């Protein structure tokens, strides 16, 4: 792996960014929807604090901050699913990717990182800003916490990519990848802590969630932002995310290799 490959990754990431920057009206519409849902989710969880001051260490401000960060992560890590790779496998386009000098998963990861940057800025920040204007959010005081949060979101994107790649690679074995995608999205929505914070779960469900890579996609970056993880815990959190990122990428790569071995593409 030389500088040339890194240069190529960079170019692919820029294409990923540009691909999504080309549709500003779609972005505005999406921001509108994410914002409306953000308000609904915020009011629902705030209703819990009419009866209690704290739930599992969250106060009202931390909970509202959690909601708006979650809304900002929806597109950034594609919480509701992604099927681009599966569609390339199904159509046979993957054959074209295979003869290129970069591993298809690496190329698609680079593209996805560029896409995620666009979505983080243009789909993530606007709802977060609206939330910050209307509600009192908890903001990190220390620049280092901001830095740790940005790194954590970056790792969350890679972890989510690894998992998305795995349920897309299923398309090598079945022409119907949508079922796998839906089931994958269900797992992400629940166990990542996106729909309700993992800390609100009953103990057994929280323990189950923490044994999976899913909190690394949503809950862990949020924990850093709202200060649930501090000091050395922040490094521990980032380490957990890094481990899951590597594990999922390796599994995806192995599965992909198996899939390619049984790939038959028609046509000349």
């Amino acid at each position, binding site marked *: 792996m030389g500088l040339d490959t890194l240069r190529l990754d960079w170019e692919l990431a820029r294409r990923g960014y540009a691909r999504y920057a080309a*549709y500003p*009206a*779609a972005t*505005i*519409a*999406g921001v*509108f*929807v994410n914002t*409306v*849902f953000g*308000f*609904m989710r915020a*009011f*629902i*969880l*705030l*209703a*819990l604090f*009419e*009866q*209690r001051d704290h*739930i*599992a260490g969250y106060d009202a401000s931390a909970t509202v901050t959690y909601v708006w960060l979650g809304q900002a992560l929806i597109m950034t890590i594609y919480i509701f699913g992604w099927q681009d790779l599966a569609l390339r496998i199904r159509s046979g386009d993957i054959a074209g990717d295979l003869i290129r000098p970069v591993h298809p998963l690496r190329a698609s990861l680079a593209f996805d990182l560029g896409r995620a940057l666009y979505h983080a800025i243009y789909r993530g920040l606007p709802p977060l800003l609206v939330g910050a204007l209307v509600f009192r959010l908890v903001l990190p005081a220390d620049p280092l916490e901001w830095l740790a949060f940005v790194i954590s979101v970056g790792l969350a994107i890679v972890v989510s990519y690894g998992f998305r790649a795995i349920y897309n690679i299923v398309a090598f074995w079945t022409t*119907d990848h*949508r*079922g796998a995608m*839906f*089931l994958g*999205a*269900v797992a992400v*929505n*629940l166990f990542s802590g996106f*729909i*309700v914070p993992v800390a*609100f*779960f*009953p103990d057994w*469900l929280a323990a189950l969630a923490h044994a999976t890579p899913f909190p690394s996609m949503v809950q862990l970056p949020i924990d850093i932002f709202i200060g649930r993880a501090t000091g050395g815990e922040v490094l521990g959190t980032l380490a957990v995310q890094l481990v899951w990122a590597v594990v999922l990428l390796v599994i995806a790569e192995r599965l992909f290799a198996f899939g390619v071995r049984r790939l038959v593409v028609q046509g000349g």
Partner: protein
Amino acid sequence: MAELRESLSLYRLLIAARVRAQLQYRTSFAIETVAAFLVSFLDFVAILVIFSNVPQLGTWSVAQVALLYALATLSFAFTDLVIGHLDGFPALIRDGNFDLMLVRPKGTLFQVITGDFQLRRLGRVAQALLVLGYALNTLAIDWTPDRALVLALTVPSGVLIYGSVWVAVICIAFWTVEGREAANAFTYGGAFLAQYPMNIFDRWLRRFLGYFVPMAFIAYFPALHVLGKTDPLGLPAVLQVASPVVALAAAVVASTVWRFAVRHYQSAGG
């Protein structure tokens, strides 16, 4: 009347063909039905997790919220089954295929609605029925004829309201194909809102999505009547039985918006 009968039989014919086609792929159908069941179940898991931390939400108990959830989800599931593919309608405009519909001897809306019928969405119906069973079983409802009637009319009214909102907001595609996702705030957003007690939302959100887009009539108002519960918002009791009227009004508005949009449609040509 004869025209209506003809439309209905044509509808049955077209939908039967779509259903037969989907049942050809049994495994896909089974997996996607189960997936629809689970996706829908997530929303209810959220409610259960919330209630594992507090005994009530805005004076509503878990079984009462389950009733709201079940009524809202059942209405939404049936609407989704019949016209959920309207989400793909903007593609018809973009590809120019809507022009074809204009020259056929049937209404455009009829053709769009018969364009698909996703049987797998029955997974959501099944999930909502389970929760409804749980709610009705747990709540000691003091049944009277009027309560039974209100409950029976809730889901048909809800389907008509959701359907009307869906048709009205998807008309945005006649002007901007890219911005069509904005419609989701009303369709999916409204469906989400209706699962919860209206009184926990801030006033402006209630006014906008609860009354203007009449999501409060999907489950909240009828549930108050069925439960014999005092409205935490203190609104007139007549609203609790008004859902069918609101539904008919919504249908009139939606068909007016649709006709207005089609009249102003300018094809991309070609």
